[in-house]
């Protein structure tokens, strides 16, 4: 249920950037979400539809770009994609490993409609 808080944070962030650009409507929102982030796409979209109603973000489509979880073995330096909960290094079986990708939790970009040409930033 933390998806509600996440959706609220996302809405504030998207509205801030849209207002800065003088947008009249937000059409698309692209998120970059690592596989290790505990966020459910459908749930965020569900709350999004409710809380964005009546704002310039109403009806905006959320796009989730999922980033695969990638690990690096700190022993043999082998890098590999995480499969299920098998964290250990497939090369040397070490459990001394670090996450190098998959934690992302970002608003990457928004597509907006503007009535006039936006001022360059």
């Amino acid at each position, binding site marked *: *249920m933390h998806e509600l808080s996440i959706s609220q944070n996302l809405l*504030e962030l998207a509205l801030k950037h849209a207002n800065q650009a003088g947008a009249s409507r937000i059409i698309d929102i692209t998120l970059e979400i690592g596989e290790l*982030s505990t966020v459910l796409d459908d749930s965020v979209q569900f709350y999004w539809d409710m809380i964005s109603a009546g704002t310039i973000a109403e009806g905006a489509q959320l796009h989730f770009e999922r980033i695969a979880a990638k690990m690096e073995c700190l022993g043999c330096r082998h890098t590999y994609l995480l499969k299920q909960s098998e964290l250990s290094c497939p090369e040397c079986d070490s459990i001394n490993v670090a996450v190098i990708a998959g934690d992302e939790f970002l608003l990457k970009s928004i597509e907006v409609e503007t009535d006039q040409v936006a001022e360059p930033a």
Partner: protein
Amino acid sequence: MKTHIPVVEQILSANDQIAEQNQTRLDQAGVFGINLMASPGAGKTSTIIKTFEHLNSSLRIGMINGDLATSIDAEKAQAKGITAVQINTGGNCHLDSVMLQSALDQLPLEEIDLLLVENVGNLVCPANFMLGTHKNILIASVPEGDDKPYKYPSMYRGVDALIINKIDLLPYIDFNMGYFQKGVEMLNPGLVTFPISCKTGEGIGEWAVWLEKQTND
């Protein structure tokens, strides 16, 4: 016309900014804050009360308690003499930095050395929301089962120390400590771990010594 706006900003950046403000406020008041997370029933309040009993003579301790509803836990703590504030999240599954900010307003921070924040009982959501405390501590408990690190990796990865409570129940429950600790080691290598029992008092001393050192450093 249609415009593409690159943003690349943390979705929870607003929460993180207020968390930073909370931490500055704690630092200025000389308060060391810890965020205690656990599943419901793991023994968060019991651990806080035991910790208070151990450290009461050397540290001034305050508590903030987060729950969906009721002030049972804060009242329990107050009855022991702990300066406690209750936050009711009204159904929200975690504390966030704004809730902590308003709770800090209600505490005499200048009279506190160590602030124990009891998060909402949950092994998923609290891991995503920084509060501004200095350390994140997870309390696991034996009856939850030995597979929890594998099932809730994001929680186990993000903590600075781990308490394993209810070790007095080990003889009665199929809890494989080796399997549990292997999972912890994979997710959080070298994590400092304190096996304790709030019931018998075993291990509380070691935990309290560590916490006191963290607070004074």
